[in-house]
């Protein structure tokens, strides 16, 4: 199946800083999503972005499908942004959605 890797694995930011999280995938995808897993374990949909660019408030995401990567931008980070960010992809002829290894973000005041 498709392989999904994320970087960096861990990130510590000062409140107000910006960051870029990266997701690489091994095969062409027809479905790519970004999630935020909060400290209570809930997976919150951030973006559905198989290609192109989307923005939602302080967050934006870009997927370049031909080069097999996606980026999540967080601007003016807040402590509530802390948690684990996952990208998840579906492709290669499979129904399943494969999660990346995650980026654990900690935003400190």
């Amino acid at each position: 199946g498709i392989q999904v890797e994320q970087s960096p694995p861990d990130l510590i930011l000062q409140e107000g800083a910006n960051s870029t999280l990266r997701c690489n995938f091994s095969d062409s995808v027809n479905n790519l999503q970004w999630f935020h897993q909060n400290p209570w374990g809930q997976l919150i949909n951030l973006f559905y972005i198989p290609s192109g660019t989307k923005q939602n408030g302080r967050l934006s995401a870009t997927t370049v499908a031909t080069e097999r990567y996606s980026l999540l931008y967080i601007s003016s980070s807040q402590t509530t942004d802390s948690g684990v960010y996952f990208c998840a992809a579906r492709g290669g002829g499979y129904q399943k959605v494969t999660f990346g290894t995650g980026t654990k973000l900690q935003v400190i005041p």
Partner: protein
Amino acid sequence: AAGVIQSPRHLIKEKRETATLKCYPIPRHDTVYWYQQGPGQDPQFLISFYEKMQSDKGSIPDRFSAQQFSDYHSELNMSSLELGDSALYFCASRPRGGTHTEAFFGQGTRLTVV
């Protein structure tokens, strides 16, 4: 808006017992996925169903089985529980509409095996 409903939210079982987790997808969603997330791990795909038929299978132990019913809800049955089965179990659903649709996750069932 309706979300994916999982029950129970928390479950404590002893070794060798059985457990049944339930998932109620968003209305008009015909695809259901089950995932297992161990502590500090990323969610691992177990099994999926499309229109009540198994559509894909991942690293699901033989002790586990699942099905999707006529009303599209799904159940994950786990037998001979082991300590290593302690994890957060997610169900997700995806709407009809072909390949280019978004999956939505439930809040998860936290299973603890003691």
